[in-house]
């Protein structure tokens, strides 16, 4: 399953639920405010899940790549489209 997480990650309770719901074959794409979850000092990202973040949202919020957890991959829109084609379903949070 594909997840799009765009809520502010400072809202711990929803982020933790998303991270707990996501399974081993899942990908969570962080977008919008959600990209702040990729910060090194951000919440724990379970490594059974693939974590990606939208490059443009990091740039727009002034977040540099060296501030991120190494486990988070960076993507652009074409890859977001391809993921939405590859996975049959997308869960948007919130």
């Amino acid at each position, binding site marked *: *399953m594909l997840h799009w997480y765009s809520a502010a990650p400072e*809202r711990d*309770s*929803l982020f933790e*639920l998303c991270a*707990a*719901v*996501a*399974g081993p074959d899942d990908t969570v794409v962080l977008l919008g405010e959600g990209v702040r979850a990729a910060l090194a000092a951000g919440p724990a990202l379970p490594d059974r899940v693939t974590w990606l973040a939208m490059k443009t949202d990091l740039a727009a919020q002034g977040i540099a790549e060296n501030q991120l957890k190494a486990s988070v991959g960076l993507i652009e829109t074409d890859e977001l489209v391809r993921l939405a084609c590859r996975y049959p*379903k*997308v*869960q*948007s*949070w*919130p």
Partner: protein
Amino acid sequence: MTEVLKPRETLLVLSEAPHISSRSRERLDLLLALAAGDWPVTVVFVDAGVLLLAPPAEPAELQDYPAGLGMLPLFGVDAVWAERGALQRYGLADTALRIPVRVGDAGEIRQLMEDAACLM
């Protein structure tokens, strides 16, 4: 439109508290539209969204739109779930809710997502 409407097993997650933005209202409207259209629908209340299930204690000034939930049983929607942790956090674990719910944790919510044909 000439296509025949083929309803799909749909799951909705409601995560926002009532009255602080139009979002919870609009998600509820969408749920009721699906139910009224005889779509097979499952709903999961998570995070502050569980507050929609709390019994009404509204001042009359604000429209009690969560009352619309009372229509779900009439539409035959009985797949109503709530997140266990959120019910506890918001003090609703031992409260009589507006409608009967099944209580689940992340594993059960995940299974509901897997079982649905469509996530809305």
